[in-house]
């Protein structure tokens, strides 16, 4: 099932609507959002995903992470000051 999320990439100027499947891994959120924002922010290899005030396990699925439609997720590139 597709899960639309509000994604916020650190360094970017706006929130984007990111579509992921509930069986996708959390790390897919990071790559999808970075690709979507690449016009404004250069993608990096490693980034963490945060939701509900905590860092999500990148190997967990979207469903396992408890993400629901229109939840907020924050992607923070690693190694960026």
């Amino acid at each position, binding site marked *: 099932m597709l899960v*639309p999320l*509000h*994604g*916020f990439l*650190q*360094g*970017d*100027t*706006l*929130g*984007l*609507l*990111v579509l992921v499947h509930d069986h996708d891994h959390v790390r897919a959120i990071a790559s999808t959002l970075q690709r*979507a*924002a690449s*016009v*404004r*922010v*250069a993608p990096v290899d490693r980034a963490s995903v945060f939701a509900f005030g905590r860092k999500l396990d990148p190997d967990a699925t979207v469903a396992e992470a408890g993400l*629901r*439609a*229109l*939840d*907020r997720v*924050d992607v923070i590139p690693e190694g960026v000051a």
Partner: protein
Amino acid sequence: MYRRTRLCKPERLDSSRGLLRLAIEPGRRSDEFVPLSTSMHFRDVWVIRVVHPNSVRTCKLASKGSQRRRCTMTMLDREEWFDLARKLDWNPTYVDEAELFPVEVSGRPWLPGSAWRDWDEPYRTSYAEYVHDQHAKEGAIHVLREAIGRPEDVQRLNPAWRSAIKLHAATLPLAEFAAVVGNLRAARFARDSAWRTTASIGALDELRHTQIPLLVNHDWVAWDPQFDWTHRFLHTEDWVAIAARHFVDEMLLVSDPIEFAIATNFVFETGFTNLQFIALASVARGIGDRLFERMVENIQTDEARHAQIGIPVLKTVLAHDRERAQYLVDKWFWRSWQFFAVVTGFAMDYLTPIESRGRSFAEFVKEWIVDQFQRAIDAIGLRRPWCWDLFLASIETYHHMVYASAYSHRATVWFDLVLPGPLERAWLARKYPRTWNMFDPIWLRVAERWRTSGPGLEWYAHGTTPVGFCDLCQLVLCGGTPLVNSAQTFAHEGQNYMFCSEPCRWIFEHEPQRYSKHRGVVRRILAGEAPANLLELLRYFGLQEDTWGKDVHRGDYPWLVKASYDDREGR
């Protein structure tokens, strides 16, 4: 039988309105008298219409129980006549006051008529004076249009500035028309007759403000179809139009006269329109766009006049329901700020050519809003809006956040956007020393995309993913800074709602029944009502290739080529 009675001696007064005033003897009530000619009474006076207004006339008036008597009366002077003619309220006898002015339409707090009796504002004019003055102002507009309003005149302007005109032109005229409706509602349901009179005149003002830009910009449509959005904009499903309607419909179309007066006349017109109508007009003068400058100045003279309605309404509400007064000011302050940050912020800091820039948007805001609005609310006895500190912080970030987002989704709007080059970025760094370092990397990245693609390939420097929108203001989720976006979530009746900022969430939480059913772009896409594919979405927005926004120079910037050459040469 009528009994003779002594009436006060009339005064000789200067007026040309064909009305006479006769004061009633002190200690006598006006209802002891009956009219013997066309007349009406108010408080302690009779007003009698006469045929020859400039001459002293003899009119008939009698007190009950007396014989008819003749009394010499004289004309009122202008100021006295205003005081008299503006205040024509009466005590209803066929219906209750609450039926005559239902709370649902007249607004909260519902107060008895006596609470509004002292309603007073300095905006006084007669219809004849109004027509005379406005006729002269209309004449000035027509002269300007003939002299400097032809397409070739506009073609001579900097192309980025032409986008500022398109943005202004689309967002204001039909909003002004909505203000006609708001004023006319007040002309019937406002609680004081003087207020109703001023609102009637205010409606005529707003009709002018609708017609002037529609007329002027229509001349340019055949040359540039983006100018057609002067009229089209508010009728489309474009995301900016959805946001504008959400704002305009609530503030101008459906709000009751109390909320309308506080939101529109006090907050929007007293607090914010100076930014667009005075500050931006001065920018236009620097650019050499005399038509824009004179047109908005012409409009501002009306705004400054009818904006005065707001203060006496706010004072009355404040005296009886402080919490309500503060809530309305806080709410509409934030919403007005967002509107002007986009419309005026874009124009001043991005669409004004660098050689014409003087003060930044933030500097204008600090003068016209931070200082002046703060003084206005202090004078009335209100607290600053609770979101004041958030507002102060966003002066240096919000319009930068939205502009960068809009530039990289420029096809979704009806005007072109410009890529800030090294000179512009240096100017912005000087004007925004605390925040610009967060935005500069974004523009370097966008410039790099253009450098890679070369001029003309718009889509390589354009986003294709749907963006998120605030469930209150309907604008893109651009609150906060690039480091920390201020978006907030709120669960209501099993649904997740997203807001760009804490104040937007606060407004929603205050009246969820008012806002929760609105369907923004994201909900329309998810419900299958709007397409998710960008090109299809542009058509849903009402845009075609000849109207959707592009880079002003199609990516063809001399500095971009030079930078590319320097890169290759290792300089």
